[in-house]
């Protein structure tokens, strides 16, 4: 297919709280991805960095920051910020350059050294910034929104706290098998239930932590891959980066209210569902073709929501799909085989790239103890602030 690009290399810096700078993590991941691809850094035509938000410039100019650390070699450069979707949009920028013939080989890097505790807005008074306002006026943290979604699912679909806990149990079991994961210990439903409530009804173990970490990919044109001796590489077939359609009717981070649907009828389906639909359409596949998925389990309840939004089951059937074992290791469509954000924590600009790393290793059959047998199609899904959301489809 002419719209495809090859994934020649994937690399990560293990996630945790390491107390070092994001550049160091990014360079480790980049060098690993370059080595995996068998590509010399000096032969890379373009570098795209997913931005981390820092006071001072280097985090905001991540592409050049990583290029300088790896050694200036004249490559084309871009830096991309889209909150949690930054990594996927960095991949989208790299893919567009390759498909446009602007570069044969592109290095994509995302890395962060996350602050402790709740994510918070940058300092200063900004009463025209919705993200600042939701903290100032409501004290509404990210987990508060996850709590709202979880309670809504309980009321509408009958989900229970036990359903949510089983998502953590599943993802912790997967993470225990992944040397790049921060948390590598099995968790029981009892341990989830015994953890402190953060935002009713969600508990500490229902919500992902903040972490340091990095992930990188080497992408190339199919022609370069062939010349390079990669006859049958993992290919990225779609990257969806759609915006919502007015009026959005699901309360979303960091908004204080939804759009009003009184004058304009809402489109069919939610924004989250449209992210996956666009990726499937671009890839020419459907949810029935998917071998495995990596989704943003910012909370356990949100993972169930993604099952439905990705079309892996009907609306309201997420908990049933989980209990049937379909999304667990050995199931019909394993979800978060990497361990997910439950096991990694959030390193914002890296996590959407890390999802594609996991899919790549799975499609190569190189995922070791976590391997999904016969994996052919992988899909990722993420959502950032302010109408950013992305989904990547990779095939073998």
């Amino acid at each position: 297919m002419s719209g495809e690009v090859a994934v020649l290399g994937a690399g990560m810096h293990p996630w945790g709280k390491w107390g070092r700078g994001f550049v160091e993590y990014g360079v480790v991941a980049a060098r690993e991805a370059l080595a995996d691809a068998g590509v010399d850094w000096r032969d890379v035509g373009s570098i795209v960095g997913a931005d981390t938000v820092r006071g001072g410039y280097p985090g905001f100019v991540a592409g050049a920051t990583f290029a300088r650390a790896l050694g200036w070699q004249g490559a084309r450069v871009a830096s991309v910020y889209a909150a949690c979707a930054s990594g996927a949009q960095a991949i989208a920028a790299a893919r567009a350059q390759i498909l446009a013939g602007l570069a044969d080989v592109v290095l994509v890097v995302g890395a962060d050294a996350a602050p402790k505790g709740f994510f918070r807005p940058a300092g200063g008074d900004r009463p025209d910034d919705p993200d600042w306002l939701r903290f100032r006026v409501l004290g509404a943290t990210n987990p508060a929104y996850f709590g709202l979604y979880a309670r809504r699912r309980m009321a509408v679909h009958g989900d229970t706290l036990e359903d949510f806990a089983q998502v953590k149990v599943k993802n912790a079991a997967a993470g225990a098998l992944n040397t790049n994961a921060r948390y590598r210990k099995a968790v029981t439903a009892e341990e989830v239930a015994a953890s402190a409530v953060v935002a009713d009804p969600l508990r500490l173990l229902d919500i992902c932590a903040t972490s340091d970490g990095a992930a990188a990919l080497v992408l190339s044109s199919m022609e370069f891959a062939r010349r390079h001796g990669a006859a049958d590489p993992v290919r990225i077939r779609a990257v969806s980066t759609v915006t919502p359609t007015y009026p959005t009717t699901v309360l979303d981070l960091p908004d204080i209210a939804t759009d009003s649907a009184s004058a304009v009828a809402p489109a069919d389906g939610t924004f989250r569902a449209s992210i996956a639909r666009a990726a499937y359409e671009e890839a020419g596949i459907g949810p029935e073709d998917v071998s495995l998925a990596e989704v943003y389990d910012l909370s356990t309840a949100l993972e169930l929501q993604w099952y439905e939004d990705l079309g892996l089951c009907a609306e309201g059937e997420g908990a049933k799909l989980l209990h049937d074992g379909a999304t667990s290791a050995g199931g019909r469509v394993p979800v978060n085989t990497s361990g997910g954000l439950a096991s990694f924590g959030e390193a914002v600009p890296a996590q959407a790239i890390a999802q594609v790393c996991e899919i790549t290793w799975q499609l190569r059959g190189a995922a070791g103890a976590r391997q999904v047998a016969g994996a052919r199609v992988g899909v990722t899904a993420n959502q950032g602030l302010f109408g950013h959301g992305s989904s990547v489809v990779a095939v073998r």
Partner: protein
Amino acid sequence: MSRTRTPVVADWFAGEGKSFRLLGTRCSACTCVFFPREDRFCRNPGCEGGALVEVALSRRGRVWSYTDGRYRPPAPYASDPELPWEPYTLIAVELEAERMVVLGQGAPGVSVRDLEVGMEVEVVPGVLDEDGETTWTTWHWRPVGVSA
């Protein structure tokens, strides 16, 4: 010492007691309603844009969902680190006429145990926090029939 009562955000709400209302804006061309108020441009992609006129939102609505904050939120939320943290509720309320969901803190004393999805609530004036000179006012959601 008497403090000045000042809305935490200007022009998002007004009135006292039973006449307290959230204030949004309505596009005079397409009738779309916005809250928080949109004073610069109509965000309906099918609208060429009309004058945006202030409009009071419905006083009552039904609970879309709710949660609480068991840990102290970071700044710019104002709270005294010397005092023990008191959880507050957050209630997302569906307004039938406007067909929109508006988030707000629950009135003092309303805990998640008092709430259910679908329950009727009303908007009431409230206090967000106080500093040396100012009492910062806000809106709260309170279950209908509860006067505490």
